[in-house]
């Protein structure tokens, strides 16, 4: 049984314009942020989700933790549907499933000192008997992420980006979770800090048998940290498989386009010579008919404009939604 199962997840945001707008249009606008997503994450896997702005990866991350209520679909954690959890069950779930947000500093309350930030989950879940061993626990957690004791007294604005990131990780670990959703955890960090954070996350995963859902736009990082990759475009998964396959044997035209600009520093090409995909990601308010990628796809044919392709397997463990393979 997979640790996390997402089934037919949909999240539509309704854009309620004023009544004048409604009078002249057919009704409120639906932003289809996530449109029928299904996937599974096994224990100790790292599933990376890649895609560009508007693809819905952030919404997926929040929906999986039920920080956003899904419009439709089911999310199962350890086989139980979290959609129907009551307050207590949801709170228990929260101690098992944590999140690391994108901006390292803004996810920390600017008026809390680090010790307060890291111990907050312990307070919320009543895991503190008395104040005295609280500090010990906090120092343990800080030590796990490579921060010395003196950091516990600092305010977020006194920390560098990398240090703030580590505090966020320490906080996420406080309740000994099983599953961590990481939303672009290294974005905005310098190269040398990024490598330290990546190594830390890998080490923690091994030591504590953690499972990650890892959102990133840095494909090199994805290669390093994940063993499965899902590629999203306009609210849908267009291809999903293990990392090796996605990097070496991807099939979907969008994946091909996305990875075509993947450049290692010793690769022998430059931006002038590369075949670059044209156009921009369309707005999720008005997605194209049929396959949402067809206007930019160099392989598209008649069927692509009319019928939406389904996510189907091209081989074991490798699925894609493209008419070329259906």
């Amino acid at each position, binding site marked *: 049984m997979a640790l996390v199962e997402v089934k037919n997840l949909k999240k539509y945001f309704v854009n309620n314009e004023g009544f004048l707008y409604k009078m002249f249009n057919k009704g409120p606008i639906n932003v289809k942020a996530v449109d029928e997503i299904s996937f599974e994450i096994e224990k100790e896997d790292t599933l990376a989700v890649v895609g560009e702005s508007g693809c819905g990866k952030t919404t997926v991350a929040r929906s999986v933790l039920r920080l956003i209520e899904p419009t439709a679909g089911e999310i199962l954690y350890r086989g139980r549907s979290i959609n129907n959890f009551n307050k207590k069950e949801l709170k228990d779930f929260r101690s098992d499933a944590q999140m690391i947000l994108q901006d390292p500093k803004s996810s920390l309350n600017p008026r809390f000192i680090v010790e307060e930030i890291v111990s907050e989950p312990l307070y919320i879940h009543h895991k503190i008997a008395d104040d005295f061993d609280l500090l010990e626990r906090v120092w343990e957690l800080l030590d796990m992420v490579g921060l010395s004791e003196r950091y516990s007294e600092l305010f977020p604005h006194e920390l560098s980006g990398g240090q703030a990131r580590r505090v966020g990780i320490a906080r996420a670990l406080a309740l000994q979770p099983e599953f961590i959703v990481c939303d672009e955890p290294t974005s905005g960090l310098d190269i*040398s800090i990024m*490598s330290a954070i990546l190594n830390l996350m890998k080490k923690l995963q091994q030591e504590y048998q953690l499972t990650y859902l890892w959102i990133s736009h840095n*494909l090199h990082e994805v290669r*390093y940290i994940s063993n499965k990759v899902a590629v999203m475009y306009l609210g849908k998964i267009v291809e999903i498989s293990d990392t090796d396959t996605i990097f070496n044997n991807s099939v979907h035209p969008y994946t091909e386009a996305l990875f075509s600009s*993947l450049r290692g*520093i010793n690769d022998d090409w430059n931006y002038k010579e590369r075949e670059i995909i044209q156009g921009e990601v369309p707005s999720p308010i008005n997605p194209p008919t049929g396959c949402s990628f067809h206007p930019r796809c160099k392989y598209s044919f008649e069927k692509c404009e009319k019928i939406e392709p389904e996510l189907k397997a091209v081989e074991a463990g490798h699925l894609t939604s493209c008419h070329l393979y259906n």
Partner: protein
Amino acid sequence: MQDKILKIKDLAVEYRNKGSYLRVLENINLELEKGEILALVGESGSGKSTLGKTILRLLPDSARIKSGSIMFKGEDICNLSEKDFNDQIRGQEIAMVFQNPQNALNPVFKVGTQILDVLYFKSKKQKTRKQLKKEAVEILKKVGISDPEYRFGEYPHQFSGGMKQRVMLAMAFISNPSLLIADEPTTALDLTVEAQILNLLSNLVEEYKTSILYISHDLGVVAGLSDRIAVMYAGRIVEVAATKELFADPNHPYTEALLKCLPDYKKTEELQTIPGQVPDLGNYPKGCNFHPRCSYSFERCRKEDPNLKEIGSNHFSACFLNDS
């Protein structure tokens, strides 16, 4: 000398902070050839953005050039009066594009109007705006904006990030500048859009024969774009070399360590890290700025500041290891 568009010599820049001065850029020596793309890379606190802004005098009032010269086409532009600099250099001979296109365009004016403004001044107020409209639409088309006639009348918020950046590039190239300073222009953009913009930039460079100083922290981007790379650390340039050579054969310990930190999609071995932290702006250690974090440091590194020395064909490095 004719071929060198830009020659910066011994430049030092300071910021005034509560009575004393913080040295943020030190000992900067850099040359740029005509038609060359030189990348300026470094992490935060390296001073790369500061250097770019210094050239165009875009620093806040609390900053000043302590010493050194910036020779542009053979003339020291530090000596120009503010008025002359503004009329002749800024936006004319040297143009700049910035990281966040959202903030660069005025949200209350139509995009077309803003382009017309630039054209109007370039024509030295000789042509009317009506006459220039056709040129403006052509420019939009050239940078790859579809439906340029229609887009001309739209407002910035109706443009995507990629489109806005194209407009910024268009406006920068209108005056046919000899030098373009690009400060992380694609950092805020999606991957595929970034590729498009860099592709566009390469084409524009080829057409206008502009030299580019490309500031970035993304080594992958720079590898596919630049001819040469200058690596900065803590306010100094530590290494300069041709792109391929820098990546294949780095000399300076910082460059070497930095490259080992980069995840690469072809490699799965463990990433290295650089112990310690980048020093705060202006608060640099005595001796070589990198020595506290350098695994090769020795006695001399703690006392003296190394200068850039030529260690190979057009390959410079500032490290005492090269002296022995």
